[in-house]
């Protein structure tokens, strides 16, 4: 926000006040926000209370701050002073902004490797914020989902999380990662959840990875997941509220962060299920759709960024792939197929009426500069969003663009096919790009992170890839870059990127 920031920490007042324990006293924690890292220019300070009711997590809204300004913050409990974190207020409403730079990440499975992506982002020192598009943590137990068949780091608790104490302990485990700590300390996070914050392929009344009864009631499990999320994540969301929200960055950009799990109808059975096109089914819910379309308008900030947990660009998988390739793509994209050809009913592809609402709105109103920023699919993509997929190959008409960051660690195609990176997947990528001409870039193998650079002239995403996700000290290199030039609604290779 232009005048406030959210500060987060957790305090352990007594040895028994362990995450998920429900034990320990209510306590007060002091906080300070300063214009300098030495805390000689304190701009705001106060006291916050917490206790076992919120797992001793502390969330503070520090207000009356100056817009577009970097601040440092710290917490004080008794004689203990926390390490300082850096944060930044958004620019004033309508103010000119030359440039914004965001880290963009998703899909960080503790068991599949190390969070080197977070460390590299933290080291940059040039980020206005980090966008986390979901799957900040995973629900599985050891042995269920890891790095191919290798368990790099076991989850705690050592079983699937289904109850409040489990979710709290798992959040707490992730927060012990020093790379994640470094990134939280380096830049403010703007987060939304996808499915693994609760359970795989969650929808409003259930999830693929939820067994009603044996794992309790979905309503109770979903509520527990949300409560732990609200406690443990630096987000203004509180249970009973809504996490979808819009943030503005002066006249340059708005950012609509979506919630595609709380209001969606159950996934269709497969790609030919009539439910896919049923106008009564929704991925956003009616209220969120109205809100989203209202944010995509010709007045207000130039760039309309959308934090979009699952892909909106249509993706058709060609049936010409080998059986093994099809099986691999199916495992990556989701669990449904017709005659062996996968179709991701968990993405917007499974909710075509809602996607059509968005596309028609953009086309009918000739809205420019809408960019969907997406995670979930453990692969890097740069796509146009066709006005009409059937005529796109001839016309090239595109209403928006989609830039998809890959996974921080979670398995992707080479892992599933059990082949070295950039070998067996390349033919699959080429076949998918040929069948989907609006897909201009696809990397099914790499793990890493993206950096989004936003100026009035264009939006550019740089994809950085890790050398080895299972190495705690992995380096990263720039893989490719794509531009969206203002007014065009199309992705093009950036200088230095793929040609």
């Amino acid at each position, binding site marked *: 926000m232009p005048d406030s920031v959210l500060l987060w920490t957790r305090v352990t007042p007594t040895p028994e006040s362990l995450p998920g324990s429900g034990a320990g006293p209510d306590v007060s924690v002091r906080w300070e926000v300063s214009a300098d890292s030495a805390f000689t220019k304190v701009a705001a300070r106060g006291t916050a209370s917490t206790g076992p009711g919120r797992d001793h997590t502390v969330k503070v809204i520090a207000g009356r701050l100056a817009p577009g300004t970097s601040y440092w913050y710290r917490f004080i409990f008794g004689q203990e002073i926390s390490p300082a974190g850096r944060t930044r207020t958004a620019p004033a409403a309508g103010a*000119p902004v030359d440039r914004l730079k965001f880290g963009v990440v998703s899909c960080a499975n503790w068991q599949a490797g190390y969070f080197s992506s977070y460390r590299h982002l933290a080291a940059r020192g040039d980020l206005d914020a980090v966008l986390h598009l979901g799957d900040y943590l995973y629900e599985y137990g050891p042995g269920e989902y890891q790095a191919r068949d290798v368990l790099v780091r076991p989850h705690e608790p050592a079983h699937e999380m289904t109850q409040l104490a489990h979710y709290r302990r798992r959040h707490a485990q992730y927060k012990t990662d020093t790379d994640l700590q470094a990134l939280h300390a380096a830049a403010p996070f703007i987060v939304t959840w996808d499915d693994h914050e609760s359970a795989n392929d969650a929808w409003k009344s259930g999830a693929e990875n939820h067994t009603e009864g044996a794992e309790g009631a979905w309503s109770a499990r979903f509520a527990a997941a949300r409560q732990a999320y609200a406690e443990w994540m630096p987000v203004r969301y509180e249970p009973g509220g809504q996490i979808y929200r819009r943030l503005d960055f002066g006249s340059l950009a708005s950012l609509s962060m979506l919630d595609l799990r709380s209001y969606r109808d159950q996934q269709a059975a497969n790609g030919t299920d009539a439910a896919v096109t049923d106008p009564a089914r929704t991925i956003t819910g009616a209220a969120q759709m109205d809100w989203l379309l209202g944010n995509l308008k010709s007045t207000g900030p130039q760039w309309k960024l959308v934090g979009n947990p699952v892909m909106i660009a249509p993706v058709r998988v060609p049936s010409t792939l080998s059986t093994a390739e099809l099986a691999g793509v199916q495992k990556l994209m989701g669990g449904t197929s017709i005659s062996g050809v996968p179709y991701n009913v968990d993405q917007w592809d499974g909710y075509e009426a809602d996607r059509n609402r968005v596309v028609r709105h953009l086309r*009918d109103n*000739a809205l420019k*500069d809408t960019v969907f920023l997406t995670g979930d699919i453990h692969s890097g993509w740069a796509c146009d969003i066709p006005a009409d997929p059937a005529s796109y190959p001839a016309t090239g008409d595109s209403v928006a663009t989609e830039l998809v960051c890959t996974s921080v660690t979670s398995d992707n195609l080479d892992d599933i096919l059990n082949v070295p990176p950039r070998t067996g997947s390349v033919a699959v990528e080429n076949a998918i790009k040929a069948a989907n001409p609006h897909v201009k870039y696809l990397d099914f193998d790499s793990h890493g992170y993206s950096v989004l650079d936003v100026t009035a*002239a264009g939006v550019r995403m740089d994809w950085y890839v890790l050398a080895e996700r299972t190495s705690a000290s992995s380096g990263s290199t720039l893989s490719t870059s794509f531009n969206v030039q*203002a*007014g065009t609604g199309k992705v093009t290779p950036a200088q230095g990127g793929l040609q």
Partner: protein
Amino acid sequence: MSQSPQQRTPASNIPSTPGRRQFLKFAAAGGAAVVLSSAQGTAWAAPAAGRTRSYVLVVDGCRPDEITATLTPRLAGLRAASTNFPAARSLPVMETIPNHVMMMTGVRPERSGVPANAIFDRAEGVVRDLDRSTDLHFPTLLDRLQERGLTTGSVLSKKYLYGIFGTRASYRWEPQPLLPVTGHAPDAATMDALLAMVGGPDPDFVFTNLGDIDRVGHSDLTGTTLRAAREAALADTDVQVGRFIDHLKSTGKWDTSMVMVLADHSMDWSIPTNVVSVDLILQSRPELQSNITIAQNGGADLLYWTGPEAERTDGLAAVGQLVAAHDGVLSVNRPADLRLGVEAGDLVAYCRAGWRFSDPYVVSNPIPGNHGHPATEPIPFFISGGSPLVVPGTVSSEPARTADVAPTIGTIYGLKAPAGGYDGTSRSSALRL
């Protein structure tokens, strides 16, 4: 540079002074003559040195994505060296006359009296174009700058634009030759006139409309040759713009010139089956049909209640509901919500992208290229030129609009806002003041 034809523009004589106008004939490209007019008593001598010249070039109906380095290299080059506003848009109703009026007045139609190309004139009982000088009720840059001792010019390719701006500029070109069907002068002739004006009386400010790109969008009824014809028009208009820039440079005027390039609206193409006829929609309700008069504006229909006053509210509600239910209709709006005045009638219907209105009959509008609806709002809008006032090579997020032209030009000359202020915004971020 080599595209610029050999040209001489000496003042030859003052042949006649019929009415309150005086005329001056200039030699133009290919031996043709360009006749400019002015108010009687206006000096033809070139103004003082050291001033800033400013030019507004309207590439009528050009979509921002049609300006490319390969198809329109001169425009693309100008844009690259400009302050560019990629978020720029046309304003309701996205038609030629109202947006040119917004450019020159800086105010919305509710204050200028000019909401659309075609309206139903209740006093005269006819649907007609707003092409009379008396239709425009607000002072324009063309006359207001003269009050500050500056000179202005209008070089407008379309007959109806010349009509509505009339004799407001110090120097005017009356468009000719006019092509049949389209009622506009080709860009080559328009550019001859602009060069004659800049080479002759050399006004401080000139307002120019280049109509070819738009007219190609309208004139191909079959649509089969549309893309090729459109690209040919874009390429040719680009050549004409190049002639202008070359002229400024070769005459040493570039260094004191600001050149603002924009469109009044863009263009959207529909197939013959995607036609909305409000008259047809109302056929099932004769009591409504007989009480509604329609002024068709391509992608927008202006609906006027002409029935008994007592039935107006319920009648308009019913009409609005019926029209909005059509697949091709995007929205039905109250004119006041679009900042249109009473001239716009009682309801304004917009079509969706890829559709058009055709009223009063389904065959009334056979042309595939239309505008007036929101799909045709995005426009190119950039401020270039050799003047040190111009900030080059910059892209701005600011939401530029057609109504911003008058306040921006006004800023250059220290012109005060008109009574009641501008509705547009001076894009002074493009200027070093």
